[in-house]
């Protein structure tokens, strides 16, 4: 071992506290990066493979009724590679062990063959063979503990039928399995049922006909063109409009989620690694300058600059390599837990962690480069001095009364306080950089915790302000408005607010969007659209209320005329002025006054469902009555939707958040500890002199840590600012259409970030203060640095 390497090992041992702190900081940076990238890539690959192998369709459409004889014409549409027609129906289910009715989406499958598109992955059991056999979606089966052999009842076309479950399956169409029009899954109360085509056709009088079609696109065909051709062909069959994967709810939510992980996987690790790089730079340069004398001696002996440089780079690399390995290990472990979490609500046939060596290489490269740059810059400064000059004690540093004192505060400050203030003011850039490093730790905590705020805010907005009904009842077909009176007479129903919902295509200029217009009573209390200030918006007698996200997608503004093409019944087309924009975190809603919607539809008053306020005491008997009403297609209970919201968003956001917060706390600890340790070695002599002059350990501890405390204090507001900016940036760059997570940072988040960093500072301060005990006083008498 060369002497220089021996020095390296001893220095490493001597500086072990700082090396460990650095290693942990690097590990956190790399850990975040690896966690985010690896989970992103696993999800993305799982999605792409699944869609490809199971032939997920590219275009989807639903019609009222169309003859099967149309299939050759559809297949001949230019740009269509394959088409699969089927019958898809809403059914009400009676699931054993469930009080309230559940909803099912009954999807036909070809007899004795796999569908051409949207092929099923049979998890357990077998394909249906007889008319009353079904395969059910795995999530629904698991949530209700149903295995092949179980039974359930369904209202099919107004008649009860007993169905035998013979298999569980997954479909690329329902990776995220939700009721149409909803955002959060409720696997107990909603499931997919696959049944033989002939059986479905017989039950719904649809022999020789279909009401749903999916298409795959030929290579190099334009989706928009094909959609237009399909719509033209199917329009007269009551088409609800064809749409691509980007408007397919499950596909959209999965993609949005992957995209969110990608964004956070870029932004957050970039911040973490940036902080680590910056920290390595600061720490290495300060470390090397405390060894100025040793550098001079090595030079005097004839060591070349690059040899000395390499020596310090090696020192940094030990921490970086150890940190990178640790970070990769922790990152892969966390990524596999996250992936396991995703697989609970995103159903892929196989979702497992696939570590990408490129991710690892990038991570190593980033941290290694940061350490080398820091070390090299510092070593260059150290070796630029002639050895003789470097061996001489550094001239006393130049000081002057700082800004703070010139403001007239000087007499108020004790000499010890002046030392602290002037030390900081003498090297303002370094003080700023140190504060910035701690500030980043604060910022990371703010960013992490603000995600929890966002979910809280979203829940409050959606479930306390917008969705205030206890249950929502939906009908298969529009019912006469008088149904409201029937509902009001059911036991425990306290208030009934009927609504009418129609599928529409909204157009403005060349842009269009498939959505639904909801007609609400003007005196509605249970569902009220909100404005940006969260105030209920009164429905105008005339004119449309548009969700601001939808308005943005259409490029329309208040006062402009939107073309509303109703996609049901007489399919009227009307131009309606946009009266106001509303702000909702979920969906792309459009609202009209109930009466004017009914007027637009040119029909006698009908309703699609109703929002109910119910007495909790009689909900059980109410549910069993609703279950037996053939007209009712769905019952959504606010409580259960809320619970599933928390399960999904709560689980996924809080678990990633806690990972981030854990990393941020370690980074904060590492920064403050290293900063205080280096201060101690830079100012050890000064402090030891004070000890000799009779200062107690507490008094010099106050001087040393006072500086760190001031830096930490300055860092906290700085960190708030940086954290705010980063959160804002993340919120702006990632704003999915379907679910818009609000940008909020609560006082609690700021308080938490400040407290965590202050605690980290206190902890590292006390560790450093313990080193003051071991200070060698007599060495100072002889030492000259």
């Amino acid at each position: 071992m060369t002497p220089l390497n021996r020095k390296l090992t001893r220095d490493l041992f001597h500086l072990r506290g700082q090396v460990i702190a650095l290693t942990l900081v690097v590990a956190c940076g790399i850990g975040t990066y690896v966690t985010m990238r690896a989970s992103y890539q696993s999800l993305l690959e799982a999605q792409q493979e699944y869609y490809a192998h199971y032939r997920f369709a590219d275009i989807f459409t639903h019609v009222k009724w169309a003859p099967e004889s149309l299939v050759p014409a559809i297949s001949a549409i230019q740009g269509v590679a394959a088409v699969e027609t089927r019958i898809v129906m809403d059914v009400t289910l009676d699931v054993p062990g469930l009080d309230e009715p559940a909803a099912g989406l009954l999807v036909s499958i070809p007899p004795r063959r796999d569908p051409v598109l949207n092929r099923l992955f049979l998890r357990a059991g077998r394909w249906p063979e007889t008319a009353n056999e079904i395969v059910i979606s795995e999530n629904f089966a698991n949530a209700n503990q149903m295995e092949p052999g179980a039974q359930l009842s369904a209202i099919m076309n107004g008649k009860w039928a007993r169905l035998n479950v013979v298999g569980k399956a997954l479909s690329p169409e329902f990776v995220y399995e939700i009721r149409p029009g909803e955002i959060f899954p409720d696997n107990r109360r909603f499931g997919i049922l696959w049944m033989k085509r002939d059986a479905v056709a017989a039950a719904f009088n649809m022999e020789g006909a279909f009401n749903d079609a999916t298409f795959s696109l030929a290579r190099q065909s334009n989706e928009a063109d094909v959609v237009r051709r399909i719509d033209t062909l199917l329009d007269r069959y009551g088409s609800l409009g064809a749409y691509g994967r980007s408007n397919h709810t499950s596909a959209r939510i999965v993609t949005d989620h992957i995209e969110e992980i990608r964004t956070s996987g870029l932004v957050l690790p970039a911040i973490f690694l940036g902080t680590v790089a910056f920290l390595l730079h600061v720490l290495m340069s300060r470390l090397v300058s405390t060894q100025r004398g040793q550098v001079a001696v090595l030079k005097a002996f004839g060591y070349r600059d690059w040899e000395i440089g390499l020596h310090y780079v090696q020192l940094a690399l030990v921490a970086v390599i150890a940190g990178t390995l640790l970070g990769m290990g922790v990152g892969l472990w966390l990524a596999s837990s996250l992936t396991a979490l995703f697989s609970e609500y995103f159903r892929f046939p196989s979702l497992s962690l696939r570590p990408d060596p490129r991710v690892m290489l990038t991570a190593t490269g980033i941290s290694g480069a940061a350490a080398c740059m820091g070390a090299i810059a510092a070593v260059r400064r150290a070796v630029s001095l002639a050895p003789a000059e470097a061996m001489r004690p550094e001239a006393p540093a130049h000081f002057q009364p700082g800004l703070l004192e010139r403001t007239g505060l000087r007499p108020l400050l004790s000499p010890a306080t002046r030392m602290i203030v002037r030390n900081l003011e003498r090297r303002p850039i370094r003080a700023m950089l140190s504060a910035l490093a701690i500030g980043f730790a604060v910022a990371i905590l703010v960013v992490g915790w603000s995600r929890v705020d966002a979910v809280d805010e979203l829940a409050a907005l959606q479930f306390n302000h917008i969705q205030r009904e206890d249950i929502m009842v939906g009908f298969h077909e529009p019912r006469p408005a008088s149904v409201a009176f029937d509902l009001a007479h059911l036991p425990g129903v306290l208030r009934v607010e009927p609504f009418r919902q129609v599928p529409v295509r909204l157009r403005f200029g060349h842009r269009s969007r498939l959505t639904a217009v909801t007609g609400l009573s003007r005196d509605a209390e249970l569902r009220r659209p909100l404005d940006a200030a969260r105030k209920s918006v009164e429905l105008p007698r005339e004119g449309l209320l548009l969700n601001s996200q939808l308005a943005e997608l259409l490029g329309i503004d208040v006062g402009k005329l939107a073309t509303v093409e109703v996609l049901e019944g007489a399919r009227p087309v009307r131009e309606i002025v946009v009266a106001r924009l509303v702000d909702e975190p979920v969906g792309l809603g459009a609202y009209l006054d109930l009466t004017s919607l009914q007027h637009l539809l040119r029909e006698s008053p009908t309703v699609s469902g109703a929002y109910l306020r119910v007495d909790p005491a009689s909900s059980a008997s109410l549910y069993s009555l609703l279950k037996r009403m053939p007209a009712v297609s769905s019952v959504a209970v606010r409580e259960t939707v809320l619970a599933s919201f928390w399960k999904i968003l709560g689980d996924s956001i809080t678990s990633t958040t806690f990972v981030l917060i854990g990393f941020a706390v370690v980074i904060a600890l590492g920064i403050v500890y290293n900063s205080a340790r280096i201060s101690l070695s830079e100012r050890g002599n000064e402090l030891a002199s004070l000890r000799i002059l009779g200062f107690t350990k507490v008094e010099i501890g106050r001087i040393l840590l006072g500086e760190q405390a001031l830096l930490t204090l300055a860092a906290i507001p700085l960190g708030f600012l940086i954290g705010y900016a980063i959160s804002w940036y993340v919120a702006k760059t990632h704003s999915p259409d379907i679910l818009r997570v609000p940008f909020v940072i609560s006082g609690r988040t700021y308080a938490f970030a400040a407290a965590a960093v202050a605690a980290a500072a206190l902890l590292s301060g006390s560790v450093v203060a313990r080193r003051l005990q071991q200070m060698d006083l007599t060495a100072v008498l002889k030492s000259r640095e």
Partner: protein
Amino acid sequence: MTSPAHDAGPRLASEPTPNALFRIHNVTKVYRMGDVEVHALRGVDLDLFEGEFIVVLGPSGSGKSTLLNILGGLDVPTSGQVIYRDHDLTSASDRALTRFRREHVGFVFQFYNLIPSLTALENVALVTEIADNPMVPEEALRLVGLSDRLNHFPAQLSGGEQQRVAIARAVAKRPEVLLCDEPTGALDYATGKLVLDVLEQINRELRTITAIITHNAAIAGMADRVIRMSSGGIAEIQRNEKRLSPAELTW
């Protein structure tokens, strides 16, 4: 000029004296350096009297710094006794030693060890703040002839001026003992003499026991007593009948 210390007359170092401020009896100090024991002091006896000016001479490793450290409360002996007035420093705690240094001892270092971020005045105020009966800092700086440099930072002062600030800082608390480790070691001839002048004047005006350890044998002439050390013991104590003024010294 005759000081009361002179009146006390010559005594044997080992003989306990009632009016000695410091009584050091059979002090040994053993350091452990890895597996090796270093006997820095081997049974030293020494009394120091009020107002005395002592110069400790000796080669490197003779134990003079260890003696100074023990006198200054920076270290405790391995065996033997160190009594300062009624304080037994022999096995004092770190807290007691800190209080001892704070109340009774002034230190002057070879490399000044001023706080670079504080002005001359503030460096002195740093110590007067924690002392019971200090001079005003301006007074201490006047004593060392730096009344016109009060608001200069160390970087704006010459080496001699920095050392004089260090002396002012050491004496401002009116210590009974002033311990100087090679105070002229880093200074040129003329500046060194200037600093010695200041130390002599402080000793005369404030009657502070002043102990200087040095390699420079020429300084011995200005002492009341010269203590020569070798191999951890006192080889010789020489009493000067007449103290020379620093101006009379040459080296």
